[in-house]
């Protein structure tokens, strides 16, 4: 069983809708939680990073961490066609030399 599980999608939503993405994990030692966006044939780019539990908001993006349920979420409000990409979650433990565990990624398609 993988340490980090992520539904591969594709997740198709109309423009303006809220996109809801999530990952589950099994290692309770994870403390850092990241979301990356990857456009086709490009490298992943860091969207948001959260330490431990709680919410973090940045513009149209909100990241949530629920450590008790071992569940993290990313919400994209007012989705745009330019949000069409694959979204990867990643997580790591403290002092792990940045050895992230990545989810397999969820493909999101926002239709005009």
């Amino acid at each position, binding site marked *: 069983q993988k340490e980090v599980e992520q539904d591969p999608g594709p997740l198709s939503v109309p423009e303006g809708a809220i996109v809801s993405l999530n990952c589950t994990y099994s290692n309770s030692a994870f403390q850092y939680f990241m979301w990356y966006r990857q456009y086709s044939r490009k490298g992943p780019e860091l969207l948001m990073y959260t330490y431990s539990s709680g919410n973090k908001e940045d513009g149209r993006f909100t990241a949530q961490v629920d450590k008790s349920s071992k569940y993290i979420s990313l919400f994209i409000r007012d989705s745009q066609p330019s949000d069409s990409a694959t979204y990867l979650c990643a997580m790591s433990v403290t002092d792990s030399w*940045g050895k992230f565990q*990545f989810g397999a990624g969820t493909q999101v398609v926002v239709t005009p």
Partner: protein
Amino acid sequence: DAGITQSPRHKVTETGTPVTLRCHQTENHRYMYWYRQDPGHGLRLIHYSYGVKDTDKGEVSDGYSVSRSKTEDFLLTLESATSSQTSVYFCAISSSYNEQFFGPGTRLTVL
């Protein structure tokens, strides 16, 4: 791409040949990483470096070696390429262990 370049960007090679991929950074970051990305597997860590000449194995290191003789360069070598090493390879850099910034990737095909 946060001052990271990878070369070559595309390569086709034959089974059994050695291949070296190069990652170059202009950010002076301490940590550098090599990942491979395959459908259904996401990003998997091959090797990483926490300083010049300081490297260690990741999750899928068999058949790969690395070297880091300068802060800015991290080389990944496939000693004898196999078809199972056909993949997209990403280099990443970090100045702390909480964030990583990725290069544009190298698409490698082993025939």
